[in-house]
Every structure is written in structure tokens, then in C-alpha cells.
């Protein structure tokens, strides 16, 4: 296996890969974007020319080797090109989440000392202008969409099209410099800095080298046999490592086409039009899609419903076996084929997943029923486990060895070991160089031999050899009885119900476990409509007695399921409440990648947590909320607290431990 070997010198940086692709696949589509209602496309040769022109413009503007350039925008070819152009010019791109508030953005731009920023539109320009005095190093802002910006003072402002034009005009004088910088790039150079949102504290800048990204891209392309024929849809945040690896690393390495949706809201219909062959989505996407399919089916005629359920049941029985290449009887095969013609095929086509050859999900646990549903339809959906510090890949599931509760075997070239405390460590060609300007944090995370602590607790399943993740190591606690408390384990059981969007479990240092529950407005709202339950606001719906009753049923059912796991049966939820507002990243309750920040939530809703443990039936709370434009307001509510039945675990089983 070539997984450990170094990169060939002619392919050890992004510009060199773009040059190769422009040479080998000049007329194949490299980028597509839906704009003005049609898919516009650019071949590798056109993309190369565009990227070079921007790079020349940047050089002419004074970009020096090693300069940092912030990239703030949604997935559009122009931003991917800008990142590549920065690398052509010897600089280092730093993508930033475009929905960050001005304060977060100021921190990142100041920390990396960006001299230039390429941004989407007026909104981002305004944000950066607001915090200008906190980012003294920023000299120029380059914007893509000129709307509303025409009359701004253009001393420090330039449009990307003007920059590109200036690059084209100055082709001759920048040619030598550009070639020299492209040729000088080597595998050990910094490729990109990605700021991780982190569940605690300020974001940290993860420095990845060309070798990190490109060796990982090569290994992962080999693992799933990705070629230049693939199509991907680029819709996940550009500042997230996954998008960088899938839409840049693997796309440039294999030479496949990156498709950008028209807008964030049209992703679903753009997905359908493109029909990607290689697709990544977080579990919430698959959950949401399944919920909407089921809601639509409930509105279908009885005959259609019967056909649907009949064949879906058959698929659940036969589909996974077919996908894994296990033996299936001829009759079942024929029936599955009929089901494909009648149900699965049209369903996949309507969701845009019919061409998916390799699909991945990661980031959170996925409900087994949800996972199996997609696999039973014939989608090769697999799980992977990783983090920014390892250029995403740590473990992944090979074809035919897939299960809902493990995350697979170590990816090619990656070594994984479990520490004494149960924490997962890894070492790989993708292991990050350092946290930018933060040697202490680097030393804390990565030891001198290159082993990185993931912060997750997990173990290898003895029979399959696959890794299973329990929870964040620091979140795993103990009840007063000394029993193990893994909040995520309980939360995931709850989140698998379509009515529950988010759950936050408490219990560390207490006698029993409790939870906050966030309802899913789409699912619960639809149910309310069906049952003639009137409501005027999220808050009212969340507090409705019948909603409470439904959630209570879910909690109790989840408890029964939790009780089955001898090790974690104490994590059953004894008391719960339904939150009056949706947890939101703008209020700091979730990370930008929508992970629960449990410490912040526990502090902010301290009175609620107290009430969960002091036996009261209801509690009054006032909560500050942040609107999208940054203004603040407050919502007041009196929340009901309910007890849920728990299952007493088998005494002998506990005693036996």
C-alpha cells in the first residue's frame, strides 16, 4: 500500500495539481454553479486561467510569500479559486465561517494576522469595517458581489472581478514571479489554516501542510476508488475541514467536479439536479430528509401508502444484505428489483441520491433506523470518524463492513490506540503541524511522537475490530453512586426520535440523570396540524401538554433501550423538561457545526438544572436571545418539569459487574 509514502514532487502542492488537471482534463468540468437558474460550468483549463489571473492580481497588489488571506463566503467557485489563487501566489488561505458574528471574525482575522480578505458581499464588508480597529493588519478587502457597495470608499476595497482584470492586464510583469512561487511550493509548506469552533474557549487555528492534505486526499481517494468522474455537491461550510478535504483536496487530487448550489436554501433541489456520485452529509441531513419523506407519504393516497410500506419493509429485510454482497434468495432479489422499479428508484431520484456510489456521514451518531433505511434503499452510506487535527480521517468503514454504532477501522496510513483512560489517540500522515501561535495547546494535544489525543472516549469492538465512540472523554462523568455517566449516549437515544431535535443530559455528580429536550419544529408542527392543535409560537407549542405527553413517551421508550446496556443503564432520564427556545449558535449554545456546548448551556439555564433536581413541578426563567442582526432581546417562560418512568436494571447483572 502506498499510504505511507511521500508525494511525488510534481504533485506536492495545490497549484501543481491544478496545472496537472488543466493539462490532463482540459475540457472536463471542474466547477459548476447554479446561477440565474442555470448551471454554469468551468473546465479545468478555464478554472486554471481564472485562478492564475486572481493570483497575478494578488501579487500585483503586494501579497508576499507566507501572507495570510481570509476567505469569507458560501460555497462558490470564486472562493475555491481564491483559495487556490492565494496558494499560487505563495500565501496561506484562512477560510472563516461566514455566519460568524463580527466579534468572532475579528478574533480569527487578528489572530492569523490576515493582510487581505476575500469576502462575499456587503454584509461581510460591513462586519469587517465595524471591527476594523481590532484587525490592524488587514489592508484590503476583496469582495465578490458588488451590490450595495458601489458607493463605499474604495481606498481599501476592491471587487474580485477588478482584481482579476488587473491580474490579466499585468500578465507579463507578474509571470516570472508567479512561476517562481508555484515551483517553490513543497510538501512541508503550510497549506491552510482552519479555525476549529471548539465546544469551549476561543477557536484554535489548525495548521495543515500540503503533505497533510494531499497524502490524506490520495489515501482516501484510493480507499473508495474515487476518480475524475465523480460529482460532489459543495454545500457544507468552507471553513470546515471536511469541505476542504472533499471539495478541494480530493477534487484536485482526483480531478473531479465540484458543484455549488444556487443558495443555501436551494440545496435540496440542486442536489436533485446534480445527482452527486460521492456525497457527504451530517446525520441531521439524513434525519431531516427521512422525516420529510415520511410526512409526504402520510399525505399520499392509501394505495400508494400500502405499496410504499410493503416494499420499504422488504427493503429493510433484504437491502443491507444485498449491499454487503451477502447471499439472498432469488425470489427476494426479484421482489427487491420490483420494489426498486416501483418505490426505491423514484424515491432516490426525488431525493437526488440515485447516483450516490460512496456516501458518508459523520460528526454525530446516526440513528440505527435512519442509517438502515438509506442502506436498505441501496445507498452505500458509511460512517467515518475524524477531526480537523487529523485532516478529518481517523477511522472509516470499508464497503461491506458497515454498522450504525461503530465508526469503522483506521483509515489508510492512520494508527489508532486507546489510552489507559479510554481516550482515543491517533497518529497519521494527516496529523496537523501545530495550532497557530499556540505552542501550549499544541503540546497538550500532540505528544513528541506525533500521537494526538482526540478527547473522545471509545473502544475497539472485540468481534469486529471496529472502533466505537462513547462520548467526549471530558464529558464522561460519574453519578453519586459511582456509575458511569455518558451524556451523549442518552442524548443520542432521544435524538433518534423525529420529534426531538436536540437533547442535553445532566447527571455528573448527581443521584440520577435528567435532560433538556428541544422539539423539532417541522415534525412537531406537522403533527400539531394533523391533530388540530393550535399554537401561536414555538414557545407555546413546546409547552403544550400533548407535546409534553408525546415527549414523555419518547423519553420512557429511550429509557427502556438505555436499560439494555448494562454498563450505561444508569443514564436513564429520571426527570426532563422541554425547552422554550431552540438552542442556537448565535446565542453560544451550539458550535457553528451545531454541537451542543453543554457547559455554557448548564450555566445559562442554571435555574432549570436546579429545578430538575429539587423536585419542583415548574420553573420560571428569563432568557436572553440574540437576533440575526446582533440585537438582543429576552423571552420569559414558565416551564413544566416531568418525571419519566425508569426501568430497574436486572439486579443480578449489576451485581455481577
Amino acid at each position, binding site marked *: 500500500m502506498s499510504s505511507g509514502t511521500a508525494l511525488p514532487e510534481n504533485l506536492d502542492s495545490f497549484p501543481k495539481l491544478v496545472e496537472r488537471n488543466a493539462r490532463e482534463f482540459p475540457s472536463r468540468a471542474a466547477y459548476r454553479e447554479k*446561477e*440565474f*437558474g442555470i448551471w454554469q460550468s468551468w473546465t479545468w483549463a478555464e478554472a486554471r486561467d481564472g485562478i492564475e489571473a486572481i493570483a497575478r492580481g494578488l501579487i500585483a497588489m503586494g501579497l508576499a510569500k507566507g501572507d495570510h488571506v481570509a476567505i469569507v463566503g458560501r460555497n462558490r467557485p470564486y472562493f475555491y479559486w481564491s483559495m487556490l489563487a492565494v496558494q499560487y501566489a505563495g500565501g496561506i488561505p484562512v477560510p472563516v465561517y461566514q455566519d460568524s458574528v463580527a466579534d468572532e471574525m475579528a478574533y480569527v482575522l487578528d489572530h492569523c494576522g490576515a493582510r487581505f480578505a476575500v469576502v462575499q458581499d456587503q454584509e461581510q464588508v460591513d462586519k469587517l469595517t465595524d471591527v476594523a480597529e481590532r484587525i490592524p493588519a488587514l489592508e484590503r478587502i476583496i469582495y465578490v458581489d458588488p*451590490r*450595495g457597495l*458601489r458607493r463605499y470608499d474604495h481606498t481599501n476595497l476592491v471587487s474580485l472581478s477588478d482584481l482579476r482584470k488587473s491580474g490579466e492586464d499585468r500578465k507579463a510583469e507578474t509571470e516570472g514571479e508567479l512561476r517562481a512561487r508555484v515551483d517553490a511550493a513543497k510538501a512541508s509548506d503550510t497549506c491552510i489554516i482552519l479555525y476549529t469552533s471548539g465546544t469551549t474557549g476561543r477557536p484554535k487555528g489548525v495548521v495543515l501542510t500540503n503533505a497533510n492534505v494531499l497524502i490524506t486526499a490520495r489515501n482516501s481517494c484510493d480507499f473508495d476508488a474515487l476518480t475524475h468522474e465523480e460529482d460532489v455537491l459543495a454545500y457544507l461550510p468552507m471553513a470546515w475541514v471536511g469541505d476542504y478535504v472533499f471539495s478541494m483536496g480530493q477534487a484536485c487530487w482526483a480531478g473531479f467536479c465540484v458543484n455549488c448550489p444556487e*443558495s443555501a436554501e*436551494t440545496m435540496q433541489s440542486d442536489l436533485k439536479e446534480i445527482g452527486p456520485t460521492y456525497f457527504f452529509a451530517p446525520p441531521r441531513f439524513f434525519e431531516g430528509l427521512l422525516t420529510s419523506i415520511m410526512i409526504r407519504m402520510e399525505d399520499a393516497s392509501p394505495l400508494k401508502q400500502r405499496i410504499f410500506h410493503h416494499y420499504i419493509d422488504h427493503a429493510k429485510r433484504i437491502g443491507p444484505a444485498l449491499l454487503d454482497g451477502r447471499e439472498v434468495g432469488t425470489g427476494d432479489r426479484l421482489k427487491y428489483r420490483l420494489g426498486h422499479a416501483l418505490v426505491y428508484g423514484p424515491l432516490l431520484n426525488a431525493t437526488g441520491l440515485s447516483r450516490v456510489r460512496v456516501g458518508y456521514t459523520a460528526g454525530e451518531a446516526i440513528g440505527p433506523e435512519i442509517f438502515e433505511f438509506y442502506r436498505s434503499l441501496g445507498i452505500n452510506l458509511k460512517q467515518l470518524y475524524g477531526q480537523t487535527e487529523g485532516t478529518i480521517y481517523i477511522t472509516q468503514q470499508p464497503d461491506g463492513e458497515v454498522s450504525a454504532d461503530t465508526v469503522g477501522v483506521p483509515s489508510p496510513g492512520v494508527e489508532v490506540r486507546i489510552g489507559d483512560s479510554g481516550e482515543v489517540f491517533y497518529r497519521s500522515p494527516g496529523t496537523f503541524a501545530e495550532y497557530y501561535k499556540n505552542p501550549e495547546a499544541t503540546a497538550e494535544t500532540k505528544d513528541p511522537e506525533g500521537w494526538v489525543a482526540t478527547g473522545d472516549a471509545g473502544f475497539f469492538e472485540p468481534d469486529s475490530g471496529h472502533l466505537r465512540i462513547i462520548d467526549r472523554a471530558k464529558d464522561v462523568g460519574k453519578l453519586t453512586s459511582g456509575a458511569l455517566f455518558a451524556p451523549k449516549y442518552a442524548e443520542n437515544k432521544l435524538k433518534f426520535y423525529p420529534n426531538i431535535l436536540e437533547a442535553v443530559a445532566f447527571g455528573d455528580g448527581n443521584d440520577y440523570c435528567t435532560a433538556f429536550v428541544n422539539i423539532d419544529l417541522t415534525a412537531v408542527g406537522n403533527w400539531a396540524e394533523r391533530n388540530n392543535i393550535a399554537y401561536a409560537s414555538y414557545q407555546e407549542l413546546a409547552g403544550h401538554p400533548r407535546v409534553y405527553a408525546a415527549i414523555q413517551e419518547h423519553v420512557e421508550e429511550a429509557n427502556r433501550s438505555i436499560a439494555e446496556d448494562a454498563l450505561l443503564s444508569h443514564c436513564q432520564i429520571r426527570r426532563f423538561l422541554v425547552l422554550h427556545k431552540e438552542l442556537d449558535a448565535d446565542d453560544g449554545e451550539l458550535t457553528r457545526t451545531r454541537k451542543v456546548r453543554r457547559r455554557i448551556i448548564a450555566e445559562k439555564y442554571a435555574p432549570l438544572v436546579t429545578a430538575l433536581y429539587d423536585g419542583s413541578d415548574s420553573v420560571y426563567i428569563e432568557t436572553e436571545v440574540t*437576533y440575526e*442582526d446582533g440585537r438582543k432581546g429576552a423571552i420569559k417562560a414558565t416551564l413544566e418539569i416531568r418525571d419519566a418512568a425508569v426501568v430497574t436494571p436486572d439486579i443480578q447483572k449489576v451485581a455481577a459487574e
Partner: protein
Amino acid sequence: MSAAIAEPTITEDGRRIGGVVMEMRNITLRFGGVTAIKDISFDIREGEVRAIIGPNGAGKSSMLNVINGFYHPQEGEVWFRGEKRGPMKPYQIARQGIARTFQNIALFKGMSTLDNIMTGRLIHMKTGILGQAIWKGGAEREEIENRERVEKIIDFLEIQKIRKAPVGSLPYGLQKRVELGRALASDPQLLLLDEPMAGMNVEEKEDMSRFILDVNDEFGTTIALIEHDMGVVMDISDRVVVMDYGAKIGDGTPDEVRQDQKVIDAYLGVSHD
């Protein structure tokens, strides 16, 4: 006559306000015995955002209907682009380059967003029935050209997601946006907006304000609007006409109008002692 053609000026934010596009001279409009508008004169200058405000029943919508030629006043003169305007047929009204939106949304509910906005392009389509029937050649080319323009508007108003959705199924705020799109599709020189923000929440109002300013800024479209929300009006307009009981009681920049005692009285009420 009165009101000498004003010299072009440049606003604080750098927009160019040109000469007078439309002038109302001593307009009086009656419906039977009811006098909706009493002897009102004002002008609209090229490139400005001109607001007409006033309490309910002040005659604002009637005024808008006079501006676009739907009503012909019994007394007074309407001058548009240097010409005095007489009574007009509906197709003549449409062709003069004035587009409008309605207080109560007047879209084709069963048609998609795209088709609704396309109807705004009809006055720019020249192919006849025969040409449309043959389709290939002229009609097809024309459709493509106009579709391109419509797509730019959809992009501008950020309504890609609802391109194919029937407008009847859309929330109110979005329908208002579609209606603005249809008005823009005719490439108007003067855009009339009848309560563009009525019934909207704060966020929708902010979005709509941004779109109105952007339309004015990007396309240089002159805009006359009626609005109830004083905050919004004062923020986005260059000059404001204030009406009460069919008469004009104030005219000037938002700051001037805000300090005018008659305006304050009309809005806040006066004690009758």
C-alpha cells in the same frame, strides 16, 4: 409656472438626484361628492426615493393612482417627463414606464413566482400570435432574453428557492417580494410602491427596506412609496410628502417633516379645547 426645474444634486451617500420627472400641479380628485384629494402640488425628481405618508384615509392610495394614471383628476395637471398627461387607456398606462405594487397584493395566485415575474416582461415582448405558435426562431429567442432578465431579478431579490412555487402558497412577506419583482421586470423608470411593508415583521421590513434601497441604487430607479411605518419612511426616503384629509400638510426632507408642527399634530392628534 411654479417650481423651477431643480438642478441635479448629489446626496450624502453619493447618489445623483436629477431633474424633475413628474410634477403634480394643483390636483383635485373627487368621487361623486367626496373629495379625496384637494389641490395638491408636488414633484418627484429623477433617482430619488419619495415617500407619501399620512393617516388612514388621507388619500395616499388615490394619489398613487393619479400618479400612475389610473385616475384622472378633475382639476389640475400631471406633467410626466416634460409632457402634460391626459386620460389614458390601460395599455398606455403600462407603456409609460411606471410600474407599481399593490397594498393588497395582486399576483396570479396559481402561477409560479417565475411566471408571475415573467408577466412583468410582457410589455417588452413583440412576437405575435403566429410567431408564438411557430415558436422556433423569434419567439424562442425572445423568451430566452426575457427569462434571463427575470432570472437576474430573482437573484437580486434572493427568491431562488421559491422560483417554481405557486405564489398562493407563499407567506405574505415573500409574496410582497414577488410583486416587487414583477414590477421591476418591466424595467420601470418610476416605481410606485403601495405600502410595501404593511403586515410585515421587523426582519421582513428590514429586508424590504434593503431591497428598495438597492433597487434605487443599482438600477437608478426613481421610487415613490406610500408607507405607514414612520421609522422606515424616515430612514429610506430622500423627501416626504405628508397628507391629511386629502390635503398636503407638509413636504420636505425627513428631518424637516419630522419637526413640522402640522405633521406632529396630524400624527399625534391635538387637543380640541
